[in-house]
């Protein structure tokens, strides 16, 4: 995709109607993102029905705007109220809230927004520059290579995004099994349907995701309650020269590491955010005079940049390979399919006009959010304080409608309900959700490529160097994750 395609994408986005949709998406995403416990994935799950009937490019622009808005919103409530909307906003709460207490909330918000903006723009450039090349490479993929890629993605996610590799693999397999419910495409035989007509059509990803991230979140909030806090005064936004220097360096480092790590399946924004926070903290302690824990700007700039850069780089494998790197990307992938766009190498060839509009919308959404976020910070803090008693029914109705609209099926609301209970139980028992979601979405791809490979010739596996590379990478990721887990267990034992 060249500059001319990108410019035509900008021309598409700069139409008044699309700009308005992007603005509304940013607004809605931020509104949901500032609410406690609701991150980008919940925001997309809840607001998805409102985009389902738009045209493909407009719907994806709105979805991208919601995604971005929710990420910006999470850090706003973390800094102003010490209520992180999601795990990746925790560093912003740890370092931003002490600044708020010192009357420097505006500066903390400006640093968070600036770092997010920088990482978002660099990340979008990365998607535009790397995506087409990776897609060109992926066009060479046959079934054995695809099998290797899916295996690697699944093992990497199972290992990296959960504490125990075995648990992660188990949950991925559970997701794959549930994805196999319905009619077998080759033989037309029923699998795991137990005679049910509704199960014959299979389980759709959209109601499952809405249940896991929408309904389950309502249940968790009803169980644990919501923290109450008073919004502090925002004040001025301009950081001091020293604050700017320290946060800009951290944002640069966070952007590079966040983007590169985000290309690996299983490296979720929450993981890279904490890696960046830990690295900035170690760096400050080595230098001496660390202000971490009392409002260190590096602890805001670095992790915020890493969060956004990782979120952006997840679009590279999604658009070019059709492989999501985490639950949020999985939901975006499901939404793309609802809009009739199949993520994969063709996104940079036959669907290049839509992809160009989406990439252009990333740039525009970043600018809208930078302009929108700071002046409206006080309003976002007030929204974060809206009682959950009022928000709960809104979320429940949106979840119900979202589940229904996926296939115009009431049965899907029941699926959403069951997925909600499962999501709540999984978080209660510490079962990792990410591998389950990835197993659910990658399972059919794995089965298809496996069957095609067997049909061609099983020997094609050992004859494909790309498959062998992916298989080796899968083994390494499992080994690495196992080693990291063992080291973590030993450290806990030693501390005990």
């Amino acid at each position, binding site marked *: 995709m060249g500059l001319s395609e990108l410019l035509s994408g900008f021309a598409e986005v700069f139409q008044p109607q699309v700009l308005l949709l992007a603005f509304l998406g940013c607004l809605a995403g931020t509104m949901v993102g500032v609410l406690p416990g609701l991150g980008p994935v919940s925001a997309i799950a809840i607001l998805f029905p409102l985009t389902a009937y738009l045209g493909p490019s407009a719907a994806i622009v709105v979805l991208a705007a919601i995604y971005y808005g929710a990420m910006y919103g999470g850090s706003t409530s973390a800094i102003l109220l010490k209520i992180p909307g999601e795990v990746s906003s925790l560093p912003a709460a740890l370092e931003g809230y002490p600044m708020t207490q010192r009357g420097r909330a505006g500066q903390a918000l400006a640093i968070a927004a600036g770092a997010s903006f920088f990482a978002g723009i660099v990340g979008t450039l990365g998607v535009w520059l790397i995506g087409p090349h990776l897609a060109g490479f992926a066009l060479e993929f046959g079934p054995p290579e695809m099998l290797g890629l899916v295996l690697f993605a699944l093992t990497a996610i199972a290992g990296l995004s959960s504490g125990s590799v075995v648990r992660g693999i188990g949950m991925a397999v559970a997701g794959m099994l549930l994805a*196999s419910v319905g009619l077998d495409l080759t033989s037309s035989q029923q699998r795991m349907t137990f005679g049910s007509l509704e199960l014959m059509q299979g389980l759709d990803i959209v109601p499952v995701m809405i249940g896991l991230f929408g309904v389950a979140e309502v249940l968790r909030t009803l169980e644990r309650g919501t*923290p109450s806090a008073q919004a502090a005064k925002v004040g001025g936004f301009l950081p001091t020269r020293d604050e700017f220097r320290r946060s800009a360096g951290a944002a640069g480092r966070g952007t590079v590491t966040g983007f590169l790590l985000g290309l690996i399946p299983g490296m979720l924004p929450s993981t890279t955010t904490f890696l960046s926070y830990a690295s900035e903290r170690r760096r400050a302690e080595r230098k001496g005079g660390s202000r971490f824990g009392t409002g260190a700007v590096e602890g805001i700039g670095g992790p915020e940049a890493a969060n956004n850069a990782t979120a952006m780089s997840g679009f590279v494998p999604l658009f070019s390979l059709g492989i999501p790197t985490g639950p949020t990307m999985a939901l975006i992938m499901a939404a793309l399919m609802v809009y009739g766009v199949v993520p994969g190498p063709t996104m940079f060839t036959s669907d290049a006009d839509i992809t160009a509009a989406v990439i252009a919308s990333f740039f525009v959404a970043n600018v809208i959010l930078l302009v929108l976020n700071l002046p409206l910070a006080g309003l976002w803090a007030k929204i974060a304080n809206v009682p959950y008693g009022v928000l709960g029914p809104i979320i429940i109705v949106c979840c119900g409608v979202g589940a229904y609209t996926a296939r115009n099926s009431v049965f899907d609301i029941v699926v959403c309900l069951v997925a909600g209970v499962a999501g709540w139980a999984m978080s209660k*028992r510490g079962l990792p959700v990410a591998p389950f979601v990835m197993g659910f979405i990658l399972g059919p791809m794995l089965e298809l490529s496996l069957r095609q490979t067997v049909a061609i010739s099983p020997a094609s596996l050992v004859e494909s160097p790309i498959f062998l590379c992916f298989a080796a990478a899968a083994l390494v990721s499992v080994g690495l994750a196992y080693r990291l887990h063992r080291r973590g267990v030993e450290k806990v034992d030693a501390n005990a």
Partner: protein
Amino acid sequence: MATTTRSPSRARTLGAYAPMLVLLLLAGLAVEEGLRLLLTIDPAAQADMAGWYILVLGVVLAATTAYSERPSVTEGTGEDAPGDSDDAARPATPYRDMTICLLLVAAYAALLATLGYVLAGVVVVFVFLHVISRYGWIKSTVYTLVMNAVFIALFELSGVVLPAGILRF
């Protein structure tokens, strides 16, 4: 006295084993389905690969579950969500509220197909506000009307097609 102390501990034991049992049940169903496809379907239907696939998945799930989901292994692995802290006001009756919430989702599914999305939304929002959020009749009614007016406007504007039910005219 003995019964009052035994019940919670029995419930805790059941809760500790529940994830393992659910996953093992899923694994068992997969193995059973896999064997059915392999052994009872005519080979001409070419269902053997479909059978092998879920049979292998079922066996892997059973093995990983037996290894990693024993209560002794999983003890204390529950995750705290962000925002979990002592400053969160703990609800008085969380499990009652959660049960009602789930019933409301089920009711929404049932009412959507019969009464339509407007009345289904009104019922679900009102019951949530009045029973779970414990708002008074007037506040619940006003909030219900406002929220549903916004829902109708949003769904109509965005072109979402939902069953109109008995309000179809």
